[in-house]
């Protein structure tokens, strides 16, 4: 029986670096996301739908990854799992050194609060709250004092060039501005990953470019960004593209491979 706590081993092939690690072992700190054979199935109308059939995905800190795939490929399910909104039916998910696949609801909520910044296609701002109040929300759930919250939320809005729109409500902002408020909200608690789900899906092409430049800027400052999209020109902005098809990874243009040795299968 191989030891589950065997350290990662590194080998160089002609094209790619190969990182090997044992199942059940915590990945190296540099890997912010490691999924090991995660599956997700659910029942729909009496039929079992296998949305994910075993996905091995590893993302290093500071990577800018686009996840692509046609509808029904499982990319939304994968995004929900990465975002800790859902838990896998089987397999491991390590986020920033913590195994989150077995966590309780409330523990997941805290992980979402600290590790994940969501950017949604439909912005999902609270309509009755001002831009500043929307950005403050993650800090509210982090238990941060009101004055500190205001300061940090204002900083985050400044980062997306919306300092002078703080007291506007979402319906007083353009689509691009709303999405920038959402990005500020995602960034305000300094998450490990920025997780964007079709962030330009509701925007015209010019505004889309503007938003992509924001992501570009964040990625170059060292923010890990994972973006789910079905638009190739949007995916082209990312430095790595992962394509899903029928619940498995069909292609991944990463320069390295993270391989997990499973018990019983040997090396």
């Amino acid at each position: 029986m191989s030891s589950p706590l065997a350290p990662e081993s590194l080998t160089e092939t002609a094209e790619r670096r190969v990182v090997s690690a044992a199942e059940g072992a915590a990945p190296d700190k540099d890997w912010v996301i490691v999924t090991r054979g995660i599956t997700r199935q659910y029942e729909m109308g009496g039929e079992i739908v296998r949305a994910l059939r075993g996905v091995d995905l590893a993302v290093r800190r500071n990577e800018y990854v686009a996840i692509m795939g046609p509808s029904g490929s499982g990319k939304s399910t994968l995004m929900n799992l990465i975002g800790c909104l859902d838990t896998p039916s089987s397999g491991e998910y390590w986020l920033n050194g913590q195994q989150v696949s077995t966590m309780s609801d409330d523990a997941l909520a805290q992980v979402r609060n600290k590790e994940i910044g969501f950017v949604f296609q439909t912005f999902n701002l609270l309509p009755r709250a001002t831009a500043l109040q929307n950005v403050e929300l993650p800090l509210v759930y982090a238990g941060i004092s009101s004055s500190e919250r205001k300061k940090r939320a204002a900083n985050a809005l400044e980062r997306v060039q919306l300092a002078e729109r703080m007291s506007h409500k979402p319906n007083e902002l353009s689509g691009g501005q709303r999405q920038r408020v959402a990005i500020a909200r995602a960034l305000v608690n300094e998450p490990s990953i920025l997780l964007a789900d079709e962030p330009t899906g509701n925007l015209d092409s010019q505004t889309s470019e503007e938003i992509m430049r924001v992501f570009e800027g964040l990625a170059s400052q060292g923010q890990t960004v994972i973006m789910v999209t079905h638009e190739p020109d949007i995916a082209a902005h990312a430095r790595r593209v992962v394509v899903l098809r029928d619940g498995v990874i069909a292609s991944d243009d990463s320069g390295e491979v993270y391989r997990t040795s499973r018990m019983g299968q040997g090396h």
Partner: protein
Amino acid sequence: MPLFEAVLLALQTIRTQKLKSFFTMLGVCIGVTFLIAVVSIVEGMSKYMEEDLVGKILAVNTFEVRHRPTVNIGNTSEETWREYQRRPRIMEQDVAPIVAALPPEALWAPMSSDNISATTLTGRPKAVNAYNTTRTYFEIKKMGVVTGRVFSPQEDAMGSLVVVIGKDVKDHFFENVDPIGKELRLGNLPYIVIGVAESQGSALGMSFDKFVVAPYSSPLRRLTNRQKGVIDAVMVKSPSEAIMTATMADVQEVMRSVRKLRPGEKDNFILETSSSALSFFAKIKQYLVLAGVVLPAIGLIVGAIVIMNIMLVAVAERTREIGVRKSLGARRRDIMAQFLVESTTLSILGAAIGVALGAALAKTIAAVSPLPASVALWSVILAVAVGASVGIIAGVYPASRASRLDPVVALRSE
């Protein structure tokens, strides 16, 4: 989220949905309005009873030796009533032993009274409360005269045909004239008016100024008590509150020996004080307060159901908001608290408005009717506490449903 911020958030939500919030809190508001109004009127009445009314009927530190209580409302059974009827009356010869038992500074007066018709040669007849008593009566009741005088000891002793009248009697017969020296006919005998008593006011629409007082041994006695030698009561005023109980005990002892009661036998007379006169009211009050609490309770239950319904609708409407909050790190208890605080704030707000409306309603009723009103602090505290509990009880189920929503499903909802 700290409670203070949760309340602010709830108030913000309530403010943006004014009309809906108004209808939501209406049930609690109406329930509390009636709770406060009913309790205020009952409290006002009892305060009035204790401080005013009974003080007017029975003076302070005073008791009356009677064969049965004067005030019997509602709770006298047929049997008790028959027992009262069988009791021997207080007789003139009982006065001497009673007086002998009193401390020297005590005041006392025999008294008989009845409703009789008074008239003048020119005026319409009027029913008045006629009293036969001695001049000490005025001292016991602390009743002064606005014009004229009370009986002299001589008039008392001789049973002269003189009378002190109340304000209503004066207004009826001698509206624009000085009544002193005028003639008032009681039982076909002419009495000379020698004084007009200070107004005794009124309670619950009943005037206390419709009386005439004549010397005890005046012929009026044959009308106020037709049986010879019988009197209605012996009024006794104790010199101080401290020895009131001792005085009463002495008088009770004397009366028992006069009546030849064996030990263990029940008294067949009563020493009526203002507190014993109040006991009937205490019983009525219990029923009134019960009604004042039970009826609004129905309103509050309806209010709770309305709040629960509206909160369920709110959870359904705000499913996406709940999803967003969960995606940003809200735990179950955060969502639970948000909706609980919202329903409780709504309910307390409704209760607060209800307190104001109820107090206003009570004051309005007090202003347009003889019923007095007094807003009791305990009823306000009760109302707010009830408001809070209604909100919490009504909010638990919707809030727990909201907290258990799956974030993936919630985010997908429209």
